[in-house]
């Protein structure tokens, strides 16, 4: 009687062991093509600023911050090279270049304009900014995908461009919400 119980127990033990030792592979190792397994592919990797001379309409350069692998070591951080005493139209583009083809996030921001605000700031007095596009709030609040930059005298400084995410709490000031993008470009005004 006792023997059969112990025999049964050892059989159960062996069976369980077999199950135990066959450790399952993680799901994403078995199905590497599962789109949910691709890691964080929904991010912003690139901020691109395109300048146009507002008086003449001529292109005045495209500059970008790019960190396509998201590791915190940007592959590209351009210096904004502008001329003194000119008004530029600055157009911003936000891209996800970690996927191929690259994804343009700018239309999403435009579509969610009521939840976003772009802020420009510089420690120098040599640049002033005026946002020209607005959201659908009443009264409309600035968005910032398009803005006029007025340069003054020559010199070097920095410009910080911040994309604030303010879902349902946008009031036109930078304070509410949290930061989605914050890039500081060096600026050279000649």
């Amino acid at each position: 009687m006792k023997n059969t119980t112990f025999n049964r127990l050892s059989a159960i033990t062996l069976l369980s062991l077999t199950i135990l030792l066959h450790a399952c592979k993680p799901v994403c190792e078995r199905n590497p093509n599962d789109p949910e397994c691709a890691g964080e592919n929904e991010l912003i990797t690139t901020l691109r600023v395109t300048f146009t001379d507002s008086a003449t309409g001529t292109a005045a350069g495209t500059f970008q911050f790019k960190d396509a692998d998201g590791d915190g070591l940007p592959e590209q951080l351009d210096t904004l090279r502008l001329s003194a005493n000119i008004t530029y139209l600055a157009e911003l583009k936000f891209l996800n270049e970690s996927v191929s083809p690259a994804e343009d996030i700018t239309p999403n921001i435009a579509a969610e304009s009521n939840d976003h605000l772009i802020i420009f700031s510089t420690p120098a007095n040599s640049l002033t900014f005026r946002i020209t596009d607005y959201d659908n709030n009443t009264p409309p609040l600035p968005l910032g995908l398009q803005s006029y930059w007025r340069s003054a005298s020559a010199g070097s400084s920095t410009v910080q461009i911040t994309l604030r995410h303010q879902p349902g709490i946008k009031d036109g000031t930078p304070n509410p919400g949290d930061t989605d993008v914050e890039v500081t470009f060096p600026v050279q005004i000649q």
Partner: protein
Amino acid sequence: MAKYLSIVFGMLLHAAGFSQSCEWTLKGRITDENSVEALEGATVTLVHLQQSTVTDERGRFEFRQLCAGAYQLAVSHVGCATLVLPITLTRDTLLKIKLNHQEAELNEVQITAARRESHATQSAVTISAEKLSALRGLSLGETLEKVPGVYALRTGATISKPVIHGLYGTRIVILNNGVRLESQQWGSEHAPEIDPFLAQRITVIKGANSLRYGSDALGGVILVEPNPLPTRHGVAGEWNTALFSNNAETNVSATVEGCHHRVSALSWRVNGTYKRGGNSRAADYWLQNTGLQEGNFSVAAGYKKPRAGAEVFYARFETRLGILRAAHSGNLNDLQRAIARTQPADDAAFSYAIARPFQSVVHHLAKVRAYVQTRQLGSLSLTLAFQNNVRKEYDIAGAAVQDKTRPGFYFQIQTLQLDAVWEHRVSEVLSGAVGWSVSTQTNNFKYAYFIPDFRNVGTGLFAVERWIKGDWEVEAGLRMDYKWGQYYVRTTLQQYDTMLHFYAPSGNLGFEHHAHPHLTWRMNVGSAFRAPAPNELFAFGVHHGAATFETGNRYLKPEQSLNWTASLDYDLPFLTLRAEVYTNYVLRFINLVPVQPARLTIRGAFPSFEYRQQNAWLSGADIDLALHPQKGLDFFNKTSLLFARNTATRDWLEQMPPIRFENGVRYTATLSKRVKEVFAGASILNVLKQTFMPRSTNDYAPPPPAYWLLNLEAGLRWQSDIHSVSLSITVENAANFRYRDYLDRFRYYADARGIQGALRLQWSFFAPEH
């Protein structure tokens, strides 16, 4: 408690008068005849005097001021026949009574005994069912906070993790009904997935103890235990309601259990809990998006015969926890702006709604346990357990996220464990256990990378022997663990598979000495090891909400601790003292260390942290003192001291619990046979400012100032043969003091919870079969 009633109420005979001197004391200690373990909760009755008492955790009982003469002493314990001993008292007498549980409910006693054995020489504190009834509705972390030496690491009012002697997370082991909890415990905002309503007993074993419960228990072990399945014929149940005022939280929990005389080996239990709370309120304002919702249930059934038996248990836990909106930082500048504000920028109101950011966690636990036992060989038990933990963290979805309903992080961890334990008795004085365990895990993540996918297999072998003679108990044990893991690292920067092995011994040596009827002291030296957690090895990315960029270190070695604890229990009629001192030296303590330069991402700059290993030395003392100047009146003091040093830098360790005192008074009275207990009390919890800070720190804000909280309680317990009802009202932070706690991760953003009133109703019944 209710299970002892039938015995107590049966004894109604009157005492015969004796004219001799009436100053004698009768003391005794009850042990199990087979396992030599002390029996707690045995009822001892002096039949003719109608006097009854229940044995304490060391199996001791005491009757005072007895007259000399002949008595009948009835001793009973759950599930075993009442033993009646004739005794003649002529002087102070010490009895040693052995109770035989061989024939009935052997398994229950064996379980209890086995659990007690594992920590007899260590410092352990048990929160009994009675004390738990005053803490119903609180999370596990908040429940354990009442124990000296245990602190709570919080993420706001709703998420808390127990910290034992300064260590938490993967450095402590939590056993839920005998199964080691396996989830994503590496995260400081990941609360243990346990429903405390299920527990009728929670034990904290402080100090390193890896012997029986496997590796990692550098700080201690927490045992969350339901009652053993019922053996009384009939149906019993318990209903709990706890209502909290601060966040309009409702808790309801019900348990029903039974056992039928036709199949008296078969017993069952079902339990369900639901809780829902809205936004919490700090002293002066609402905390937006801090609601919670939780629903749990469990079923258990057992078939137990003296020679063999089996038990199945399944529990499901599901929670959804709102995260304070103001605590979500996009980058370091956001964090610094939030700290600079004295209160959250959002103008919040009360609401039950939970929006992003929030966590959603589902945990399943299934267990099968079987045992056989014989008088010659002892008992052999096998436990097979499966756990599936799915954690989803929903952060605020930015413009780049197409699907706004998906979580930002998704982790799934599945664990299969098999434990075999052979409890044996070598001789009258020597008994022990030999055990073997195997486990395997698979971890899956989706969406953002923070820790890798991995699978692992671990195995451990242990032996522990215990020698008991006279007033001495000596315990020694040894364990060896081996862990193999394969990790699939898939960051945007690196993709590789790697295999890691860890193995280490652990051990324990301790003794307990009942030096005097009033005094017991014990000393224990234990060693435990912990293999690095997956985040410490392979983390890569911005830690959610913490505004830090964390990088793992795949070359980390296991931590190994050497822990020494000495404790004493001193019991006098007017004083009880429980004090312990400890020192825990942790070799290769894994610490998150700031490194330069800061990580520059498109979200801005983040302070960069890496995992490094340095030796740490944690020492301290816990004191639990109570004075009883007259019957029913208690003055108490609970003190927790901790000094944590980094021996490599010869400096203090950060993020350690500050010194804490609790002083209070409590009055308890019995009004009538039915109104068993009426109580009222007040206490002041005093937490000092953490001043043991390293010379240079990368913390964003200095430790908050000291604070004190006034807590009030009052209640009563009514009892009949069948029903027991307890009702209590407590008020925490009754002065609505505005404070922030050093170990609250939301202290950067908002004040802790203000005044919190609680109303608790517990009703339990037992309907015996006719």
